[in-house]
């Protein structure tokens, strides 16, 4: 295969699966900036080793394997800077995420509906936190709540979204 076709093939496969790989990484590393760094590194590794990827096999499985190794490598590097989960814990989580892969994809698709159903201020808080990337203190100021109260609200919203998605999928 000519090299530029190979490049296009890689870019298309990456485009197709990058969200699944990205969420897979974030399930293990929920810290946003860390997860983003890991995903970047993983993509580079994927590209460098793309010649070893066999056409016709699962790109997602291959990409996840690489991403998992990047998570472990990152953990090792960062162990002193920040609290890190044990390797055993990450392995258990990764396995669960892989096994539930199809179900998690369905959850992802249902989530948009559930976000739409949130009441006005809850949706605003989610937007401020995730879309604008504001810290809890800044959001608390904005919506006139204490920091402690906002942590509780955020937790409650995530829990509500989690239950909403589960309920919707159970119904269908």
């Amino acid at each position, binding site marked *: 295969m000519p*090299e*530029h076709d190979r*490049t*296009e093939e*890689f*870019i*298309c496969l*990456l*485009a*197709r699966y990058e*969200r699944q790989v*990205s*969420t897979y990484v*974030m*399930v*293990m590393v*929920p*810290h946003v900036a860390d*997860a983003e*760094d890991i995903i*970047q*590194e993983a*993509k*580079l590794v994927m*590209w*460098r080793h793309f010649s070893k990827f066999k056409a*016709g096999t699962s790109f997602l499985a291959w990409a996840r394997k690489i991403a998992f190794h990047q998570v472990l490598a990152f953990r090792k*590097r960062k162990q002193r800077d920040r*609290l890190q*989960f*044990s390797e*055993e*814990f990450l392995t*258990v*989580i990764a396995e*669960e*995420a892989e096994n*539930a892969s199809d179900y*998690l994809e369905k*959850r*992802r*698709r249902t*989530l*948009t509906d559930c*976000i739409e159903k949130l009441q006005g201020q809850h949706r605003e808080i*989610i*937007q401020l936190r*995730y*879309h604008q*990337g504001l810290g809890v203190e800044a959001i608390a100021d904005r919506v006139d709540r204490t920091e402690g109260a906002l*942590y509780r609200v*955020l*937790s409650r919203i*995530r*829990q509500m*979204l*989690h239950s909403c*998605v*589960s309920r919707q999928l159970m119904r*269908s």
Partner: protein
Amino acid sequence: MKSLPKHIEEAYGLFAKVVDEQLTKIEAKRLEDLVTGDVEIRKLYVEYMHTHSCIHWEQTNAVAPSIKDLVDATEEGSNQRVSWNSEKRISVGSAVSAFNWKDVFRLLVGSFAVLAVGAWMGSRWELTPELPVSGSTGGLRNVVAVLTQTVGCRWQGSRLPTLSGSQLEPGNLRLTGGLATITFRSGAEIVLEGPAEIDLITPMRCFLRSGKLVAKVPPEAKGFTVVTEHADLIDQGTEFGVSVSPSGALGMSVIDGLVEVRHQRSGVLKQIRDGESSVISEAGVATDGVVLFEGWGTEVMPDLRRDDTQTVTVSTAFGRGRDAYIQSGNPEKYLEAERHNSESLLLVKNSLDEDWTRKAYLGFDLSPLSDYHVVEAVLNLTIESSGFGYASLVPDATFGVYGLTEETLDEWLESELDWDSAPSNLPGGAEVDLNRTVRIGEFIVIQGELAGSCEVSGRQLIDFLNEDTNQLATFIIVRETLESKVGSIVHAFAGKDHLTSAAPTLRMTVEPIVPK
């Protein structure tokens, strides 16, 4: 909210602390024990973090930095790193060694950067005619397309420039509304219909994540590919329409020419010719059974929201559908020329005179929907001129729409419908029997408005349709605004026998009812 078992509640508390970075060492240990020791909590943990992750990617419109960004970074110099700011645009800042970019660059510069940019900007690039370009595009090196036209476009947090005329590099575009025409450097042109999300990859490829597009591909761009989650649509010199729902379900119609569909999971290659449509899912490529009703063609295909969700339009002309109006008093006492009747219009009026009040009845045949659940619905009427009465004698007029809940009365006949026997009719000019009807909503016709359309939608309409058990739905339309003087305008709406205007129509988004 129902209270949760104690250990689950504890787990949720710890999950939140993980996300908000509030977890202490002791709590981390406790969480690890809970998650590794309890299958249910483990499952919950993965789902919870997955939800957090999805909100992040969805809300930030964040496709993690693409290969192109990495290539760009290599060209900015070696002591730099790619980082993200809150706008999720890639920025290049001074080194904060998350990892050693110098090594990465060394590996990349020799291989990928040259290869990728070379491939993307290769011979095909040089051969394409110059495209109209304007806007601020300084410094772009890897343009794959130009945004050639925008109509009412609204964009969401795109990382690409979204002004008409902008040159577009590889990246993600989210159109929340409107039509955007994108002309690729290969010559292929797509018209994207919001809401839609697309990744521009190369002059010959794009990845449609959700929404609709129509692609027109000239011979020189033969091979132009619309990548979707479940299949690659490889053009062979043609025009085709594609619709992807957020769930990934895919509908495609070839308007002219030939498209090859390469199914992702099975690798199966299928050819779709002009006039043919196809539904593509993870399971495979289907070319028949695409349309819900005979004669509707692929019109039911767009607007897919979830698996198997479809838009269905039923008018009063369909099946057992009917429409008619009733008139108070005794019109027979007037001369033929003064009766002010109509065969093709549905007349509605709230009159001070006992003889001239009119109410319209609409009957819809819902039998094709018996296995579906309505998730969205709009009742649409076309405003016509009746020619009777004076518009100046009635202000902006509010019309009430009622649904007949007493289903035994649904079988009324057009030819026999009259003031005294019409289901749930009461003497008042805007009055109906509220024990046998439910108020669906209202609409307003502006004073003097003699054309256009009006509609009613909302929860009440959806619930009314879903509560139907006999596959027939009757609506009653009354004018709530009373005339200020006798002789006011008779409002009219096109009926099913109208020669040129659309009959009363129910447009519904439906999804299959899954048997329990």
